[in-house]
């Protein structure tokens, strides 16, 4: 076939192209036949769990130490870092006989407005004790807006000794290896260090972060 005919838009295939066509048809039949037995990619979602990436940012989880003490020491860094102003923390001094957290104070109220939350993960980064993490849970739905205001009871990991099993709190899904896990003694120092970091960030940020009252 001449190049001239090609330029004129002729659709006549050459002899080689014709044999190629037949071979390609047979080859593609083989491909589809092999895919008949191949593993299927469909996830039958409500029946099967959806696997999310370890870096997935789902609903928040408030973690505990291995002995069951709450990690959160009510330092308010998460609510300061939150660009959507979704986190409300009210602190209270730990009772001396039976401390709830390992710091001076603990969170009496820890409330997240999931309708405001943009799942950016800044709270996770700000937390000096890795108390708040974004888990893998994404099945967040409710019948009214109040259902999306979640409190400490909803967010807190079950006690290590408890029998409660909830896929929201499958630590395999939110234990991030790149987050340093501080030991108990470092907590106070960590808070101070992180507090300075955050303050520095707030000071140098352009435009400055405006912290609005809730």
């Amino acid at each position, binding site marked *: 076939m001449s190049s001239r005919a090609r330029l004129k838009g002729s659709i006549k295939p050459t002899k080689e192209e014709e044999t190629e066509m037949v071979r390609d048809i047979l080859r593609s*039949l083989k*491909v*589809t036949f092999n895919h008949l037995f*191949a593993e*299927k*990619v*469909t996830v039958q979602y409500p029946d099967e769990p959806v696997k999310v990436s370890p870096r997935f940012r789902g609903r928040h989880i408030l973690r505990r130490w291995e002995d069951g003490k709450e990690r959160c020491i009510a330092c308010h860094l998460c609510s300061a870092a939150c660009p959507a102003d979704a986190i409300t923390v009210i602190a209270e001094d730990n009772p001396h006989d039976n401390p709830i957290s390992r710091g001076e104070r603990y969170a009496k109220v820890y409330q997240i407005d999931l309708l405001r939350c943009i799942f950016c993960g800044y709270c996770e980064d700000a937390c000096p004790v890795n108390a708040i993490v974004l888990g893998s849970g994404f099945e967040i739905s409710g019948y009214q807006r109040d259902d999306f205001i979640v409190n400490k009871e909803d967010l807190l990991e079950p006690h290590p000794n408890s029998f409660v099993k909830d896929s929201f709190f499958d630590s395999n899904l939110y234990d991030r290896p790149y987050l340093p896990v501080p030991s108990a003694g470092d907590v106070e120092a960590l808070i101070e260090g992180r507090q300075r970091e955050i303050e520095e960030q707030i000071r140098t940020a352009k435009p400055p972060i405006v912290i609005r009252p809730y």
Partner: protein
Amino acid sequence: MVTLSEILWSVVKLVIIIACVMGALPFLIWAERRLLGFMQDRLGPNRVGPAGLLQSFADGLKLMLKEVIVPEGADKFVYFLAPMLLMVPALCTFVVIPFGPNEQVVDLNIGILYIIALASLGVYGIVLAGWASNSKYALLGGLRSAAQMLSYELGVGLAIVVVVMLTGTLSLRDIVEAQSGPLTFWWFGRELVVPLLPNWLVFKPLALPALVMFLIGGFAETNRAPFDLPEAESELVSGYHTEYTGMRFAMFMLGEYVNVVVASAMVTTLFLGGWNGPVFPPLLWFIVKLLFVLFTFIWARATLPRIRYDQLMKLGWTVLIPAGLANIAAIALYDAWKWNRFAGF
């Protein structure tokens, strides 16, 4: 003389066969959707009933509850007649298909011609549906379909002539019986018998081009991928049945699948030896072969993209018909050689 009991017996057989075919269609549709899914790494419909087996019934129920819409300016009589014109001839062909030695309603001595004639009648349903709908998409689909089916009927007809020349009969039962026993060739005045292989036409090199032609023509005549231009959804919405809703649409859909079953049954009868086969009962052999051909139909649909209209016409007129004529000429020469030997030349 045909007695009353013979007529009654035929009617009973006919009712049973049509009931079986119509009963199997929902499962054929389900199988097609699941196989297509599997071939595309999906699961296909699997929620309604065990493994999704009842999916087609759910769809049928939905279609029954749909409103019947008649487009403005449609030719009402023809519009309602068209689905039946597609469906009825398709079902009529089951009269002559030999499912087994005793499972054939009637053995017409021109069975193949009867099937060709009814297959041609099916075009009317599609063309009239396209014309009566008063819609440009339906009309274009109907016209395409008419042109396509007329072109490919010739190729299919030539493939059938090859079978008729090799078996020497137009009766479907005799064609199947001609394919019984071990594979036999005539070669230099001797009968060569190939043990182990059955005498089906697939194994005869002279019938192989005809089989390929018949399959391609079958895809085209049933308006299925890769020749589903009449309902090319990317350009014609859904072609000739664009304006049909509810059960009338379902009739087109079922008619298409009946046609697929007829085409597969024809391939089985003409080329795969019909009910012939060792050990198992003849009916089972026929059904297994039928399912195999149906699988080929689905397989081709999952694999091949729709071809362009000019390519379709070109394939029909410049490839299939010359190939068919060449095949017929080859068999004619072979036969002439064979009969001359017998006549002592």
